[in-house]
């Protein structure tokens, strides 16, 4: 009599160790099996496979869960901690009570949120924070300062901390938390503020990093000096907006633009414009 227990009680609870293992596996493998068919799908499935194995003791349940996580997944690795933690929490719930947590809800959340979360990670972490760190490191190195290495490592650490923080937060608070976080007024403010900062810095960095000057002279008048008198360094800004126009409105691929830049540069060097 006393041995009769419901499935809800037998489903094993996950420990902190399981969560850490999943994070470690995810950080290690996320981009390794990257492919055009399911992008990071194999890595996501492989990372939470030990957890699924622990949660689903029946073989067919496990097979179903593994197949579910082999579907297409592509997200920023460390901001993706938001999805990793949520998914683990949802799978844990499903293992206990499959009727309250349908498989479609898990897949739906993953595919629905990978876009916005990737946008957060790619534009905020990489586009702004990462670019600033990279520029700082490159500038130091170009001046012969080995401290550049430490600057690079600091950004690596920032990303790891982000992954650990987001995964733990969303795992503990469960499914509703990621929607609260992504949809909260604070997050919207952070993103719109970050966008303004990023746009500002794109202009600032164009001024400090893009170099384009003309050696042209008309009789004894140095054209670059005249231009600088009107609007200092107008060429880099013009180049930025020309490229932006081609990317955004002409939808030209980046590979073609790089080749175009090289071709036009060599041509202009031949004529002597730049």
């Amino acid at each position, binding site marked *: 009599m006393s041995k009769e227990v419901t499935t809800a009680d037998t489903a094993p609870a996950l420990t902190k160790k399981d969560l850490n293992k999943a994070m470690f596996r995810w950080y290690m493998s*996320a981009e390794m*099996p990257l492919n*055009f068919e399911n992008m990071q799908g194999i890595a996501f499935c492989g990372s939470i496979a030990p957890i699924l194995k622990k949660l689903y003791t029946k073989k067919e349940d496990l097979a179903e869960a593994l197949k579910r996580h082999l579907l297409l997944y592509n997200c920023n690795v460390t901001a993706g901690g938001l999805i990793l933690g949520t998914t683990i929490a949802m799978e844990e719930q499903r293992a206990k009570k499959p009727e309250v947590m349908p498989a479609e809800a898990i897949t739906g959340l993953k595919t629905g949120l990978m876009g916005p979360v990737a946008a957060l990670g790619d*534009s905020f972490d990489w586009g702004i924070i990462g670019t600033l760190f990279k520029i700082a490191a490159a500038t130091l190195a170009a001046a012969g300062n080995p401290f550049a290495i430490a600057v690079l*490592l600091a950004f690596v650490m920032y990303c790891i901390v982000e992954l650990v923080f987001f995964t733990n937060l969303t795992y503990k608070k469960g499914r509703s938390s990621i929607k609260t976080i992504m949809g909260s007024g604070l997050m919207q403010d952070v993103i719109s503020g970050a966008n303004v900062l990023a746009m500002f810095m794109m202009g*600032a960095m164009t001024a400090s990093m893009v170099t384009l000057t003309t050696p042209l002279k008309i009789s004894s008048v140095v054209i670059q000096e005249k231009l600088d008198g009107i609007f200092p360094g107008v060429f880099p800004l013009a180049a930025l907006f020309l490229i932006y126009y081609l990317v955004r409105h002409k939808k030209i691929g980046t590979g073609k633009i790089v080749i175009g830049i090289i071709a036009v540069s060599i041509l202009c060097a*031949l004529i002597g414009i730049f």
Partner: protein
Amino acid sequence: MSTVVIAVTMGIMYWWCRGMIFSYFGFLFISSPVTVGLVAGLLMGHPMQGLIIGGGIALVFAGIIAPGGNLPTDECLAATCVIPIAIGSGMSATTAIALAVPVGLLGSFVTNLRKVVNTYFVKKANDYAKEGNAGGIWRCATLFPVLLAIPLLFLPVFIINMVGQDVVVNLMNALPTFVTHGLEVAGGILPALGFALIMNMIGKEKLIPYVFLGYIVISVGGINSLTAGIIGICIAFIYVFQKREIMEEVSSDE
């Protein structure tokens, strides 16, 4: 140190970074021309020169990010192929940077090829899933793609480093000056592509005035990047607070 050791080290670094072992550690740290430059420099007995050339190459590529993992041009391929040759032949940093630009282009081809070849493991992983074989899927995620990346990523860099020096030095000497100068010009423009890609990703045309503002603060104001960053943060805060205030006023009127 012998050429073989250097070629093997460069091959391993490229394999590690584009095989994306330990994702962002490989993708950001190992792949950085700064790291590659320092390692190559240490092996060849010129750590400072390696660091300086690496820093120069890194500056050109710094703005290039990979939205959605699509790499437009590959700084790590450029660094692992160009830096040892540049140090070995006593090339100037400017020439090394000019050479790095076209080499970086080939990288996007290699990384895309890897994504095509890796699709093979999707099928294999699905077979393992049907059997409920969690370990098999983990091997598809780690061991197999990493092994496959050896001929794809390690080998080309190894070969270029083994045979490259004479070929590249002769090639660079044979090129007319307008080509090498043109490549230097392109190196100066390329960061703008990275910035344009970030602007496109943010996708808010009405924020373009802030680009001008940032540009003017540095080019006309002559302020350094760090101070410009602080000004940018202040502007971002003002923008957000203003927006919130307007929202609150509108909602209290209703």
